[in-house]
């Protein structure tokens, strides 16, 4: 799909827990072929304290209703404002942006690892991988059981595993403490991960050690989101590359993450 600037109408805003909200936004233009991992850059205009747009993964697409879903974790002024928006409001959204996850060609066994709100791009990914008949395992890490949202949604497309730092749900510890990262890790053809950088680096390290292909979706501060400001660079083997256009998804081989 070509990138466009659209005024999307808020259809619903469902509060998932104290700091997560799920927005459904309707487009007037026929949506087509959005790739998991792509994102939308949303204008937040109901507050003085936000100037630039805010990037959010496209969480899910409903091609029938012509809507996209955005999972918002409230961490600052912009996300707070968005998580309070009401049905009927209009949001200016630029999407779809960036390069998403690459789809395995042959039937594969894949592991999706999400931490915190980093789970956002993984739902659409799980959905499409599942529809393409890949074998999908999903590992979701959070601080505590209260921080886990939408597990049932993920469970529709694969087996869901969890870790929590306080042990209130699933395995106690970080995602890399989960049994999936044990000696069976090599049975996976590919790992897709998104979450805090430290988590992704740990996942990437184990993927590399076990020679499993791995793609990570990076976060970054962005001014434009479509490749013109050069503010969102990350260090790659080919020098500075823009996360918004060359990413947000990168194969770990492209990145200079050494350990």
């Amino acid at each position, binding site marked *: 799909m*070509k*990138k*466009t*600037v659209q005024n999307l109408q808020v259809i619903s805003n469902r509060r998932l827990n104290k700091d997560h909200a799920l927005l459904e936004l309707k487009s007037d233009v026929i949506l087509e072929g959005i790739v998991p991992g792509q994102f939308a850059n949303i*204008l937040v205009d109901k507050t*003085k*304290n*936000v*100037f*630039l*747009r805010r990037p959010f993964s496209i969480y899910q697409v409903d091609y029938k209703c012509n809507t996209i879903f955005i999972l918002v974790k409230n961490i600052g002024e912009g996300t707070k404002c968005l998580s309070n928006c009401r049905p009927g409001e209009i949001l*200016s959204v*630029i999407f779809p942006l960036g390069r998403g996850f690459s789809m395995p060609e042959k039937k594969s066994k894949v592991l999706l690892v999400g931490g915190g709100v980093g789970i956002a791009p993984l739902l659409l990914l799980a959905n499409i991988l599942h529809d393409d008949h890949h074998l999908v395992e999903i590992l979701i890490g959070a601080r505590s059981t209260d921080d886990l949202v939408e597990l049932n949604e993920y469970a529709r497309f694969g087996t869901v595993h969890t870790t929590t730092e306080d042990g209130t749900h699933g395995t106690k510890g970080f995602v890399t403490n989960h049994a999936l990262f044990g000696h069976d890790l090599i049975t996976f053809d590919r790992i897709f991960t998104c979450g805090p950088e430290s988590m992704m680096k740990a996942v990437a390290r184990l993927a590399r050690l076990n020679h499993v292909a791995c793609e990570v979706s990076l976060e*970054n*501060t*962005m*001014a*434009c*989101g*479509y*490749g*013109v*400001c*050069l*503010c*969102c*660079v*990350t*260090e790659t083997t080919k*020098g*500075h590359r823009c996360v918004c*256009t060359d990413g947000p998804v990168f194969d770990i081989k492209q990145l200079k993450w050494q350990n």
Partner: protein
Amino acid sequence: MAELNIDIAGLKLKNPVMTASGTFGYGAEFDDFYDISTLGGFVVKGTTLHPRQGNAYPRMAETPSGMLNAVGLQNGGVKYFADHIYPGLLKYNTHILVNVSGSTVEEYIACAELINELEHISGIELNISCPNVKEGGMAFGTSCPAAVAVVNAVRKVYDKHLMVKLSPNVTDIAEIARAVEASGADSISLINTILAMAIHAESRKPVLSTITGGLSGPAIKPIALRMVWQVYHAVKVPVVGMGGIMNATDAIEFFLAGSSAIQIGTANFIDPLVAKQIISGIDDYLERHKFNSIKDLIGCLQL
């Protein structure tokens, strides 16, 4: 339709709306959004003689009604531009200027010489005002002798339109403008970003890897307007104004202050379609106020 065309010292623009260097990539990024040949012109990214990796991440900080950047002229160098970017620009039917920076006068000259060969490039915007590189850059724009030296030198080797972009980080912008005019500038554009800083209170660290960076966006509009007004009254060459223009009303203010054309910078990040909308908004304003031509507004502030 009012007359939007304007002649900037020989540079015949179909309308007075250009986009600013560093905020418009090489144009192609906008192909999905609209036909950028409808612009009066656009200025491509800051280009240097040698390739530059730019500064380390983070390069951006959001500020009240504005942002800081410290990109540091990341670009593939003028040779790369000529070989790999230039061919892709031929398809655009509008004026394209290359923004040129350097650390020494010799670098500016060498860069300008190469661009002089590129037929489809209408002019150079000489950047003597970049606050984001250690050597040179802004230093050329904050002292009259340095500005004179670089403008004189480039003028000698460059035949087409030479627009010189001034730094706002000076005590007396009019003085620099006069010096630049006397050295052969065909037009003067201003303002580049204002040297500024952002600190992250929680981590007690500067937000930018370079500590300081350049402030742009609506926050600087009142300063930019004042400087455009001062320069308009100091020189005879056309003035191209910019700094925080977000909509047609802002653009009108710049024409009234003395701009013959304007450039849109940071606003492109917030709305990729903004330049197109500003063109039609200017037209609406002229119609509504019964002016025949954009020329009727330039410098026509009523005192």
